[in-house]
């Protein structure tokens, strides 16, 4: 399958980190399965009009983390064996999101009670959709 990358070169996040994040999420979320081939450094850099050094850097880091395997002369593949995001990493992501929520609430002067109401409402919504989706 061909993974579609969304790059925001003008965000404050380095491009290689954006690539790492997208491949990690795609692998953890099942969009990519073990053994899937990723585009080569050349292809990806041309598709996204970015520096090949940046793609190499992202791939090297992903290989170090065991998410992909680079077989020289053959290609780059998603690692065999399941890729789970580590619990700690998952928690980190969630923590950030929650924190952002509170920052926003602080700026808008929301009380804790009011925020809690919105929080539960959103949770209900998501739960209903989730059941329908199954």
């Amino acid at each position: 399958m061909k993974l579609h990358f969304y790059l925001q070169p003008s965000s404050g996040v380095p491009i290689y980190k954006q690539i790492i994040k997208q491949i990690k999420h795609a692998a953890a979320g099942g969009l990519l399965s073990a053994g899937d081939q990723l585009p080569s450094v050349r292809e990806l850099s041309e598709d996204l009009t970015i520096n090949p050094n940046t793609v190499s850097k992202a791939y090297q880091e992903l290989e170090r983390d065991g998410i992909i395997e680079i077989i020289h002369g053959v290609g780059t593949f998603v690692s065999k064996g399941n890729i789970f995001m580590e619990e700690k990493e998952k928690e980190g992501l969630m923590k950030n999101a929650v924190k952002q929520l509170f920052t926003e609430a602080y700026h808008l002067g929301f009380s804790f009670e009011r925020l809690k109401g919105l929080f539960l409402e959103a949770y209900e919504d998501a739960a209903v959709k989730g059941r329908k989706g199954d």
Partner: protein
Amino acid sequence: MVLAVETINLTKEFNSFKAVDGLNLQVPEGSVFGFLGPNGSGKTTTIRMLLGITKPTSGEGKVLGLDIVKDSLNIRAKIGYMAEVPEMYGYMTGEELIRFCRGFYPSWEDGLVKKYSELFNLPLKNKISSLSKGMKSQLALIIALAPNPSLLILDEPTSGLDPIKRVQFLNIIMKEIVGTGKTVFFSSHLLSDVERVCDRVAFIKNGRLVKTDSMDKLKTQEKIIRAVFQKEPPPGFFEKPGIKKVQREGNGYLISVEDNFEEIFEACKKMPNFLIEVIDQNLEDLFVAYVGGDNDV
């Protein structure tokens, strides 16, 4: 680290005006280096000195290990250069101009000319004066690439191109030059292009180097922390290496960080606070922060 370009206190004065003022640049081999600054900040003068088109008033420089004053002829033979507005002999056809340039270079490769002109689908039989601005840039790029240079110096290469041509242009440079381990040094004020392709940047203002670093480091280290502390932080709290500027904002602070970000952020989090948030800085924010404003409008 092998350097493709290095300058030490490079200075150029016109009468008594310092167009370039004690510039120290280091461009690693194999990198894509963005040379950024407002108009009139000395970018073109610097590039002309690297090529030996203009002689420095003082200081020194090396390009591919060759001295920019003593060895400029060899430098020009080994690099590809494209000027900001590539004005070429309008009465010649593309083919004639290519033949004219070919005679200057010992390392000229006809195969490369053929490859790129087919790629660009450039009408080489037409007179240059009848070509569009984008086609002229493409022709200039073909001529710059034909001697198979290990360094490509481009002065505002994409400013005359439409978005599609720009992407095509950047892709060729990425594929043909960077992909083969060669170096690209380019000046630009189109920050979105720079942000996509550069791995190092330098900001220049009034002929002086204001900041140079890798793009990834800039993006991970250059941030602003917005903090509202529960009580005033102790004196000296903001005196940490890496803090560039501290501004008051209501009863909070805006702390501009240029280095050592993680440590500073942790220190802020440890202080009892109502709010801590991180504002990412993109290249445009950094450009404005480093070289924007005051006296160069």
